[in-house]
């Protein structure tokens, strides 16, 4: 964050120089008071200790569990929801992944699924993505993970279907009404930042173990992006177009159906895309409550530290994500392509679609009837070669890089993390609060200051102040490293299309690969430390920051760069004096997103030695008497997220205005 500020400063006018001085003054005052007051009123709480709030959460949880068979809310509400969703999941599973109706195999075998996937991709996209989809799905079979992949696909499809059922109408409503938008936004923030671990156990209490709970957990996480993007799409339809429609006598309903929705279709499909990606990110977490599929393979492999097998399954998730991403992206582009070349092509399209449908039907029939088309042939040899290659690569890295990585770890930990953490955790709580509120107000304006103080009061209320500050220290260090990486790679990608093409698939994979897969190698390289958690967070968060910065740099007008070149600037000067300052709103956005993504990895960090809030959440998921504390820790993470989101967004608005 500090980096972004520094970069935005040079171009700023007199007013901002003033702000910089104020920030510096606040920090100096903090350091001075820290020296004097160190170690007093730090609000620490030992790992097994509870506050009244935590006990109260426990009691609520217990009383729900105790009367779930007599409570009408369960009998007539939750049980009904569960039934509907369970039937949906089971239906799709019987279709493509699980044995059904006395058959040893699902209704549609691999050949049928590959056929359908190819046909649908071609119908909604183009033949190139159809080819990619067919190749991708065949690869899943060759990896020896056909059934697992289909289970994952079933869950993803049901979750996305249910999510869209709510998300699109809600998104449209939020797009039409400012008030709805304002009400919905905090809920969406909550749904996205609340760690999944926190609500997994209550979900199984409400919706029992298995498919339904896993689907609902996924829906909670996957719906918000679709709602946000749909609302955004409706909002970005030009005012004048709507006015024109209304002046022609269209009713509100007509305006919505004939103008707003068709015009925002492209963006809405992008929302669907984001929803699918979010659903796939939940695959491994849902496996903890017995959701079938690839996530289970990953989690089980990790119990015996089998990196190769976990990687193989992780790769299958990545392949599926890339196929679904490219297909939906092509689908969103199709609307436009079709509008441009409507005439002749459309007349040929129908018979072609018909022929394709016939071929697909035959493939489905074959895969329903014959073993060779129902069961993926071969023994998944590719999968085991991938697994052993991954094993070899990890052991090589562990044997050869350990010394280097330890030095790096100790450098960052002792030089940056430890001092910063002790500044946050050993200062009296009210001092840290005062500093954060002051910084929020100076950087983001008085409204951000108010939000910050509300969040801080609630944070103290969770009883986990000290843990929250420990987590905050690691989070900020991780964000600084993410921004450094983002600036180096983002600028490089922004300046060279070739680098962009080479790096982008790697970035996609880093975002979708389940973190559980790379935790074992990271543990071997860095040990069970806070630094391991930081590195894991960087792998997940850096791609977002890099992509945003690359876009920002690319958006700097060509002419400006040329002018600077002709004025005799060298490459370094162009980057630091022209491209970075001019893309400073992208830099602030990247900081914002980087931080939110880092926060979403706090729980994963708790599994590899980061302790603090992440550990509290995992502990709450594992032990009954710590349930309430885990819930409070989850809330604390949400509060940290909301606080920094509001500050950085307000700061971004200031920077761009």
């Amino acid at each position, binding site marked *: 964050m500090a980096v972004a500020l520094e970069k935005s400063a040079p171009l700023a006018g007199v007013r901002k120089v003033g702000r910089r001085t104020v920030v510096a003054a606040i920090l100096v005052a903090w350091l001075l008071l820290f020296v004097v007051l160190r170690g007093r009123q730090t609000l620490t709480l030992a790992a097994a200790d509870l506050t009244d709030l935590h006990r109260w959460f426990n009691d609520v949880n217990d009383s729900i569990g105790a009367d779930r068979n007599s409570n009408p809310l369960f009998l007539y509400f939750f049980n009904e929801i569960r039934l509907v969703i369970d039937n949906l999941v089971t239906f799709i599973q019987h279709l493509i992944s699980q044995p059904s109706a*006395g058959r*040893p195999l699902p209704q549609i075998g691999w050949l049928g699924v590959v056929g359908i996937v190819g046909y649908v991709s071609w119908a909604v996209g183009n033949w190139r993505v159809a080819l990619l989809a067919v190749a991708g799905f065949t690869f899943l079979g060759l990896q020896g993970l056909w059934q697992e992949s289909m289970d994952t696909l079933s869950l993803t499809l049901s979750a996305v279907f249910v999510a869209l059922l709510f998300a699109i109408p809600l998104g449209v409503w939020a797009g039409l009404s400012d008030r709805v938008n304002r009400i919905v936004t905090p809920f969406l923030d909550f749904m996205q930042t609340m760690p999944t671990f926190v609500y997994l156990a209550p979900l199984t209490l409400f919706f029992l173990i298995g498919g339904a709970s896993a689907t609902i957990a996924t829906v909670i996480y996957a719906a918000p992006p679709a709602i946000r993007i749909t609302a955004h799409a409706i909002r970005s339809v030009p005012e004048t177009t709507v006015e024109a429609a209304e002046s022609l006598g269209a009713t509100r309903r007509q305006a919505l159906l004939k103008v707003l929705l068709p015009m925002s279709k492209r963006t809405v499909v992008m929302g669907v895309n984001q929803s699918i990606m979010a659903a796939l990110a939940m695959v491994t977490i849902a496996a903890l409550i017995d959701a079938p599929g690839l996530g289970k393979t990953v989690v089980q492999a990790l119990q015996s530290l089998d990196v190769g097998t976990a990687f193989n399954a992780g790769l299958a998730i990545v392949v599926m994500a890339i196929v679904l991403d490219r297909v939906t992206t092509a689908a969103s582009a199709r609307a436009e392509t079709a509008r441009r070349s409507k005439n002749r092509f459309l007349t*040929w399209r129908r018979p072609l679609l018909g022929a394709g449908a016939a071929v697909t039907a035959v493939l489905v029939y074959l895969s329903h009837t014959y073993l060779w088309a129902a069961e993926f042939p071969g023994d998944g040899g590719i999968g085991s070669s991938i697994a052993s290659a991954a094993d070899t690569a990890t052991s090589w890295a562990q044997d050869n890089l350990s010394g280097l990585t330890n030095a790096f770890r100790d450098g960052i930990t002792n030089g940056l993390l430890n001092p910063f953490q002790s500044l946050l955790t050993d200062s009296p709580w009210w001092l840290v609060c005062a500093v954060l509120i002051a910084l929020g107000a100076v950087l983001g304006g008085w409204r951000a200051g108010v939000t910050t103080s509300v969040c801080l009061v609630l944070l103290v209320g969770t009883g986990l102040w000290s843990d929250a500050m420990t987590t905050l220290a690691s989070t900020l260090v991780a964000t600084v490293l993410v921004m450094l990486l983002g600036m180096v790679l983002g600028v490089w990608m922004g300046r060279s299309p070739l680098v962009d093409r080479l790096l982008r698939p790697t970035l996609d994979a880093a975002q979708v690969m389940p973190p559980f897969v790379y935790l074992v190698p990271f543990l071997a390289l860095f040990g069970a430390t806070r630094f391991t958690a930081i590195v894991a967070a960087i792998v997940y968060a850096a791609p977002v920051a890099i992509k945003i910065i690359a876009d920002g740099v690319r958006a700097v007008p060509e002419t400006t760069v040329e002018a600077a070149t002709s004025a005799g600037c060298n490459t370094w000067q162009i980057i630091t004096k022209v491209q970075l300052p001019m893309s400073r709103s992208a830099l602030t956005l990247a900081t914002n997103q980087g931080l939110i993504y880092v926060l979403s990895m706090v729980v994963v960090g*708790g599994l590899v030695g980061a302790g603090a809030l992440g550990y509290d959440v995992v502990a709450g998921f594992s032990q009954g008497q710590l349930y309430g504390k885990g819930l409070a820790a989850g809330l604390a993470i949400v509060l940290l997220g909301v606080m920094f989101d509001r500050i950085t967004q307000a700061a971004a608005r200031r920077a761009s205005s």
Partner: protein
Amino acid sequence: MATQVRQRTGVAGIAVVTVIGLTLTACGGAKVGDDSADSGSSGKCGTFNLAVNPWVGYEADAAVVAYVAQHDLGCTVNKKDLKEEIAWQGFGTGEVDAVLENWGHDDLKKKYITDQKTAVAAGSTGNKGIIGWYVPPWLAKAHPDITDWKNLNKYAAEFKTSESGGKGQLLDGDPSYVTNDEALVKNLKLDFKVVYAGSETALIQSFRKAEKNKEWVIGYFYEPQWFLSEVPLVKVDLPAYTTGCDADAAKIACDYPVYDLDKIVSAKFAKSGSPAYDLVKSFNWTNDDQNTVAKYIAVDKLSPDAAAKKWVEANRAKVDAWIK
């Protein structure tokens, strides 16, 4: 444009013909459901819902019980991968019939057995659960006196890490484990700080690396555990356990008791008369038995089912005693 489109129709036509050709030639192929001999022989056992908690030792228990239930009793076994807390929750909702390896968990016993009466105990597994502090074998060999807790402070400085704030580091594991380590460190006046690795994976990886690179690590561990057959960690002696020495959690200054690992089943399942319940009740084996199967799964990379088959075939007498 038009020619291109026609070409595509051509391609589609060829595809249709090919597919029809495939259909015709494939008529001799095996049809789905041809060999239905193996399925559908569920007998009177019916469905048996078995919770599988996330550690390999438990997986070994579950694999063997599931294998016997399926092949000898003709049950349809549903294995459900769940953490302990959620597995116990499943007793009440009818989604879990049995938990095979329970480590103490007095709070859960109180909640589900005493208060909600949805679960009942089904006897010991025969496994002895030993919890304690362990060091890698190289360290115990190089400094034999380290296995006595009284000497730990002498070596505290060697155990320092970037996480331990100037003290020695005592590495703890997954938050679901029973642990008194913070109280122990305080009450035994040890110059150590408990650092939470956060997962079994992190714990094993730390010990594995410590043995390989001769690093100083001391941490929480337990048996039965497959990892001990790869790296035989050495237990550090804490002040001996006596009955009641752990009554006050804040004042604990003694070793962990030896846990008699036991089985818990849902109350409904216990009354159902299912042969699977009788199997669960009489299932009993040793730490060595479990470690053997766990090693097949974790080190030799057999599937749980194959591992169970291998062990059952070699230990037919034991298995027969369970299902008699």
